[in-house]
């Protein structure tokens, strides 16, 4: 067991270092601004006094390294400073939106994961049949469409023409859970469509790869019934690639959410990021980027750790 723990710890350490480097990139990219943040925020007409006051307020007079460590120290405990535009605390602006985004992603994942993996396994078992070809073309089309295309098609047919679901997902605190699910159904469905296609293709590839290996052929040749080949021989080795597929797609979900949130005017962190980018509100941009990157890295990490933990060869050392 020591081996596994070592591997997992090593992977965790590597993830942490990556996150640190990314935080450095995110912070010092803003330093690359022509001029500085104060000039970018106040624009051309700023008087020297205003600039000096803003610099003082934002602590821009300190050297960049000091500010980086202050920023990082704050970020670790959830304090990202104040918004440049509204002056409010970034953490209060973002927290609720981040929870909304996580809810949307979780909603989509709960539908997409079982659906996609079942379909992927079926398609892998029926490979090279007509069903497989049709599924291939359909998933390829779904992957190739921009998220907003799928989103607007769903709005047109499920909202405008039939009126089954609301096109704009405005959320209120006093909504019942069923109401919440109904209101966020269209954005969730858009994400489900995109992610399912990705996941199906990846599951199919993983399973076909596995079924081609010699020990599966051996099991077949000795007369094991097909379902037993799958359940007893293929599945234990298939967990690692499948967990990998799930984690990678959840990571994809987290970023795919940005466009979908804008299409459906969903009050999530993705929309906050886009708004902040067009208003050049750097503290919010930095905070959102860091949160997205951290989630992305965390899920990739989960994929790796899951792959290590479910690897039968590592669990039963010789």
């Amino acid at each position, binding site marked *: 067991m020591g081996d596994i723990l070592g591997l997992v710890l090593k992977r965790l350490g590597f993830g942490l270092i*990556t996150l640190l480097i990314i935080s450095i990139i995110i912070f010092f990219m803003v330093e690359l601004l022509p001029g500085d943040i104060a000039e970018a925020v106040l624009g051309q007409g700023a008087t020297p006094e205003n600039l000096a006051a803003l610099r003082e307020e934002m602590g821009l007079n300190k050297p960049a390294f000091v500010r980086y460590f202050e920023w990082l120290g704050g970020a670790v405990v959830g304090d990202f400073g104040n918004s440049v535009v509204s002056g409010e605390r970034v953490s209060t602006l973002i927290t609720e939106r981040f929870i909304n985004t996580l809810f949307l992603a979780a909603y989509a994942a709960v539908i997409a994961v079982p659906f996609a993996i079942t379909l992927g396994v079926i398609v892998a078992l029926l490979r090279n049949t007509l069903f497989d070809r049709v599924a291939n073309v359909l998933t390829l089309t779904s992957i190739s469409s*921009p998220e907003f295309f799928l989103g607007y098609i769903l709005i047109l047919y499920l909202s*405008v023409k039939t009126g089954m679901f609301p096109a704009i997902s405005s959320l209120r605190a006093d909504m019942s859970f069923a109401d919440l699910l109904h209101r966020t159904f269209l954005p969730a469905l858009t994400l489900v469509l995109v992610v399912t296609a990705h996941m199906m293709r990846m599951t199919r590839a993983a399973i076909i790869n596995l079924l081609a290996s010699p020990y599966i052929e051996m099991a077949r040749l000795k007369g094991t019934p097909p379902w037993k080949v799958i359940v007893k021989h293929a599945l234990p080795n298939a967990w690692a690639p499948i967990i990998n597929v799930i984690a990678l797609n959840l990571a994809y979900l987290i970023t795919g959410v940005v466009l979908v949130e804008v299409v459906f005017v969903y009050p999530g962190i993705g929309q906050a990021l886009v708004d902040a980018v067009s208003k050049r509100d750097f503290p919010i941009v930095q905070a959102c980027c860091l949160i997205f990157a951290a989630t992305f890295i965390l899920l990739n990490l989960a994929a790796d750790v899951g792959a290590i933990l479910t690897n039968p060869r590592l669990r039963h050392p010789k």
Partner: protein
Amino acid sequence: MSVFVVLYFACLIIASCLAAFYEKRGPFILLFSLTLISFILGIVGGTGALRFVAIAAAVLAFAAGVAFCFREFLVVLLPTKIGKELKTAPLTAAFGLFVIFTYAIAAIFAPWIAPYGESEVIASSFAPADENMLLGADQLGRDMFSRIIYGARNSVGLALAATIAAFFLGAAAGLLAATKGGWFDQFMGRFADVIMSIPSLIFALLMLSIFGPQVFVIIVAVAIIYAPRVFRLTRAVAGNVVVMDYIEAAKLRGEKDSYLIRREILPNSTAPLIAEFGLEFCFVFLLVAGLSFLGLGIQPPTADWGSMVRENATLISFGDITPLIPAAAIALLTVAVNFVVDWMLFRSSGLKE
């Protein structure tokens, strides 16, 4: 029962009978299961649903016909060696080639094809389609059709430029890392890992927020984001070539790194790189379209598909499909490129076995 429904089922049953008579198993199963599904569909959805199925089938048949003709056309036109290869291409790949060809024509000859100028106001805003305007007018009264034609030039051109930049950066670094090896290789590998662990859209938004939405910034940002992917593949492909004996021989001859890359490694790793270029183009195209949809791509009044969707999005709530057309144009091109790449990947993997 309308005439349409009777005709619909008659056609399906006759076609399945024919398929069964000539012992075509696949088409028979497809046609007959479609017949059975149509019974249920007809009961649930009425004539409308059946009409939809018929239209979808007609569109598919039309696309297949176009693809078939275009493939034959290319086979006849091109030299025999390439023609023979093309003859084995599946219809999806031929369809992809046809779409790419059409887009290229639209992009190159945009000023001659488009009836109006790119930002020429000719009608009131959101005017419906008439004999002058094929697709109606957009939110400022500009001709939608002309803007879509010009969009082919701007959107695809930008994505292509960005892909080429990413590709050169990544491929050069990958080839250099494979030839040089050592700490340079290690460093570039780690660096690529870090860049790839930032979600691409988020990284692009970060860079655009800092340097502003200009075409040059978009190209550089996309090049930085996608170069690591190209780097990884090039490194892997070239890594397999570098260990060959003929490279060793060339090294012993005293050839320089640049010669090794140009004359020995590159010619032996082009096939996977071309497929990767297509795949990379799809990713870049979708990313750039996403950025322009968010209002951070090519700035108005330049016609661009992503921002056209955003500008006309309000029409959706009136049940008008106009804003979907530029979005569909994006999807169609990506699908087409994917079809062609799929075929190329299949071919290169088939050759290996």
